């Protein structure tokens, strides 16, 4: 439940632009604190991170980023309603035990949630599963099935259905292809990642 810097720096610029200046921001699975530090410097945000990995806690402390060590499967219960403007979950939803629980709490604790997820429906993944009959292993998803931290994969379509069924609003969607914004049609087939802004 932590993010290595190298795994997902690509969406940080975009996410930073989506955060209003002066916001109170909570980053779940904040990794080494790169995104929060950026938000502090560029958006004058009040920042707070959560991560489970002691190594990442140390890295955050080195950057001066405040971080609480905790497991996303229960730590969100420690936070008050609407105590943050923005709650971010970047490349982490697929590793938690209860994604629905985490998203529900994100929208309780924050006024809005920014979520970025890898898209399991990306055509390369489909290709590998369909033609090779194997769980996909790609540049963006480099793990084998037995050692992957990613235990809850979904496609962009799955994610949209989930948000709709919960009665939440999907205020904005941004599609990425290997780190770059893409306007290509049929994102569920051609995008590797989704960044979504969700509100209640």
């Amino acid at each position: 439940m932590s993010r290595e810097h190298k795994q997902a720096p690509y969406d940080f610029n975009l996410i930073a632009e989506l955060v209003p200046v002066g916001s109170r921001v909570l980053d779940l699975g904040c990794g080494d604190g790169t995104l929060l530090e950026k938000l502090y410097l560029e958006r004058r945000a009040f920042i707070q991170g959560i991560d489970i990995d002691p190594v990442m806690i140390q890295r955050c402390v080195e950057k001066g980023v405040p971080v609480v060590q905790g497991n996303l499967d229960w730590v969100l219960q420690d936070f008050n309603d609407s105590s943050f403007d923005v709650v971010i979950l970047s490349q982490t939803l697929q590793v938690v035990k209860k994604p629905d629980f985490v998203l529900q709490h994100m929208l309780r604790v924050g006024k809005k949630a920014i979520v970025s997820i890898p898209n399991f429906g990306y055509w390369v993944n489909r290709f590998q599963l369909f033609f090779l009959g194997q769980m996909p292993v790609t540049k963006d998803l480099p793990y084998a099935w037995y050692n992957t931290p990613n235990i809850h994969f979904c496609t962009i379509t799955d994610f949209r259905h989930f948000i709709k069924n919960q009665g939440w609003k999907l205020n904005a969607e941004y599609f990425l292809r290997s780190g770059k914004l893409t306007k290509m049609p049929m994102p569920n087939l051609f995008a590797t990642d989704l960044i979504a802004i969700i509100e209640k």
Partner: protein
Amino acid sequence: MSSAKQRAYQLWTVPKDMLPFQLESGEKLHELEVAYHTFGSLNEARSNAVLVLHAFSGDSNAMKWWYTMVGPGKPIDTDKYFVICSNVLGGCSGTTGPASINPQTNKPYGFSFPIPSIRDMVRVQALLLDHLNVKKLIAAIGGSMGGMQALEWAKTFPDRLKSSIVIASTTRLSPQNIGFHVVGRNAIMSDPNWNGGDYHEHGGPKKGLSIARMLGHITFLSEEAMYEKFGRKVRKHGRNSPLSFGEEHEVESYLWHQGSKFVERFDAATYLLLTKTMDYFDFSDGYNSLEEAFAASSCDFLIISFTSDWLFPTEQSRDMYRALLRAKKSVTFSEIETNKGHDSFLLPNPEMEDLVRAYLEARR
């Protein structure tokens, strides 16, 4: 207290015009001396001070008892920081306490010394900082009872520190913690040499104090650490004890050793008073919630707990960071994996050392 024998610490006599010092209990001290150590030097901007707060049985010589943390090149680096540590009010290592002479009776206070609160201790430390010309601290840092003082600093003097570092501590004792203190105090007061607390001129309740300390040491270790340290090894001993069966378990000799070493340096009345100080400490006293108690604080917080500390378990640290988050404070919390129990904060622990080093560095 002005004994002629050589002492390692410096002694500051609080000037008459700042006295009497009134404790939270309402009682007044008409004379007050503070024993302290400083390490490193204060920079020109007077902006590099770190206050180290000792635990129950500590003293002002932080470089000795916290050798893993304080010193040149150590996490609380005396080449960079001006490190201050003073013996607490009511202590027995130089600062005015039960062994000091009560100016009104010309005899040691003994048991009549008022029970200081954690806030009283912190207020005395603030006077010392004024005396040392230190306005603002980079951090107030301490473990166990030292952590309680670090918390109190954030509440009582919010403008005087950038950060509060609270290690293996709690915002209030559990009934289990208090229970252990009760047994310790009873051991002391059952000793015939306790003499109602009037013992400073003859001997003192050494047996009782030693038993209290033995109990304490059990609570400082974890079950696993005790297995590691002693196993079930048995050895012969030559000591004359009423329980002598010619041999004893390793753990028994350890506890005897700790107990008898302790009575040479610690005062029984201080033991009684300071355990009471901790029993009474409740950070949220006078507030509706812990969250409210933190409201006036403006510093950053670093909270550290240890997985095998069953005296002040992680859950007590979680209560702290939860309240701080709710009070919208900036908080860092880390639970460090170790099997060394409550004692962990005094032992070498690379993870704790790295965290504190980086935390201070980021605020320098």
